[in-house]
């Protein structure tokens, strides 16, 4: 079956006063319908830029190379009008920081109905869909539709934008940090909601820096570091035995695994080395790590890949 979303060789750079910032480098990923991909990584690793690139919401100082195909259709070269219709009919974005995503001078109901209308629902269908969506996240249409964003707490604002994923029938839902500001029990509720959306056949791309939330989602994990996707593995395998040294370091930094920090600090995106970006901080680096930038090597089949020379043919045979 052809994948729903196929991203290949995707590179994004920004021209800034501080120099050229490489936000994504050669990112490769595929999601099939009904699959769930969780992109994890620390702040500044390029996770949000990935979502914005798929939605074509990047600012003008960006340069994009590579390809993003949704259902076989190349998104990066679509006309603005065609892109707008893809955004409203096939995609759904749960934006980061809901406090700034909700228009402060319009009522929640008006805002939500606008989205429903853009997804091609009539006013009546929209209201029904929204009522169901809000019900899924534990809010009531009657109680909040007349309110303004500032009257809701941060957690409620987050749940309002999460409800949008339930409106209409998007093929791909992208959730950017859907648990920011949520308490533990609401995080669990979000996990259940996302799994329900997945059960309806939609593909889901979740972006988060919260490893425990990522583990609960139980999908495919994509680990990002300094603009590269450095590992891609099924959740169970990643949290048991990550292949990339950065993945191992991250898990060891969790308090329940000893809380050992990774030495050094992340590289600046304006001065990315041409070799492996993690070599500076890596505990198992080799001389060749400073000479070459490794591609994605298969670790164990197609589902588990890592961008590390440890898994190159030549190293394995030794």
């Amino acid at each position, binding site marked *: 079956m052809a994948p729903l979303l196929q991203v290949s060789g995707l590179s994004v750079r920004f021209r800034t006063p501080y120099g050229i910032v490489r936000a994504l480098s050669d990112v490769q990923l595929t999601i099939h319908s009904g699959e769930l991909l969780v992109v994890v990584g620390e702040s500044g690793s390029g996770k949000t830029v990935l979502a914005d690139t798929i939605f074509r919401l990047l600012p003008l100082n960006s340069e994009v190379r590579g390809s993003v195909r949704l259902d076989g259709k190349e998104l990066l070269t679509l006309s603005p009008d065609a892109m707008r219709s893809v955004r409203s009919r096939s995609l759904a974005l749960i934006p980061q920081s809901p406090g700034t995503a909700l228009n402060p001078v319009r009522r929640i109901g008006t805002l939500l109905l606008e989205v429903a209308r853009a997804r091609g629902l009539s006013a009546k269908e929209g209201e029904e869909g929204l009522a169901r969506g809000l019900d899924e996240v534990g809010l009531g249409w009657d109680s909040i539709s007349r309110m303004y964003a500032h009257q809701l707490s941060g957690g409620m604002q987050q749940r309002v934008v999460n409800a949008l994923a339930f409106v209409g029938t998007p093929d791909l839902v992208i959730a950017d940090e859907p648990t920011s500001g949520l308490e533990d029990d609401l995080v669990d509720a979000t996990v259940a909601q996302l799994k329900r959306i997945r059960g309806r056949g939609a593909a889901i791309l979740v972006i988060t820096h919260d490893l425990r939330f990522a583990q609960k989602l139980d999908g495919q994990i994509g680990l990002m570091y300094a603009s590269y996707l450095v590992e891609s593995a099924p959740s169970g395998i990643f949290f048991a035995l990550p292949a990339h040294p950065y993945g191992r370091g991250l898990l060891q930094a969790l*308090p329940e695994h000893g809380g050992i920090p*990774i030495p050094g600090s992340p590289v600046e995106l304006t001065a990315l080395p041409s070799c492996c970006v993690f070599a500076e901080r890596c505990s198992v680096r080799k001389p060749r790590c400073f000479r070459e930038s490794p591609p994605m090597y298969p670790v164990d089949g197609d589902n588990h890949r890592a961008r590390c020379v440890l898994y190159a043919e030549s190293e394995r045979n030794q």
Partner: protein
Amino acid sequence: MATITAPAVFCMLKANGISKRYWTRKGWVTALDNVSLCLPETGRVALLGPSGSGKSTLGKILSLLLRPDSGTVVLDGAPVLRWRTKTPPALRRQVQLVWQSPRLAVDPRMRIKQIILEPMAVQNLVPVKRAERATVLGRWTERVGLTDELLDRYPHEISEGQLQRACLARALIVQPRYLICDELSSMLDVSTQASLLAAIRSEQDRRKMGVLLITHDRILAMHWCDSIATLSLSRILI
């Protein structure tokens, strides 16, 4: 009200029956209701609780920044009496607070090195000689894991994690007896969180310092702290 078990000595930061309420448009809102908490001088205590339970209010009161409506804060056996009038700098120096959001906790017009040295400046402790100043700065930047070239930058030019490291250095530079961290790492990724906590721990290895970690992360509290207090609906539960 139950309190956390503490050694029967005077060396501790103690909240005794603290109550605090705020006036809002909806009337009086009780943030803390007769809460007692004890922070031993060498301990690591976690303060857990859902948002809105009064964790941050208690943190501010314990760091002598907010006056409680009733109840007392006892610092090493001596109750803090003078809240409005100038508290002696030597007293205020004893408790330092690291805020949840570093961007809001620093003056955007100051360079990182000024930010780190500010508490010393307030206390008239900044070394006069330039070389000595550089040594002090160098020592603390190294301990919290900052690099020297960041010192001349402004807050907007460095990342949130780096800025939180600077805030930690700012709190530790006056060698407080008690450190209160209000959601130190809830916005940061795990590796930065681990390295900040390791920096606090190694400071505790060097000298006696009590740490109160205000957090909503139960797993972190369980693994990093030696006792846990839970706030719920303005009261201490455990």
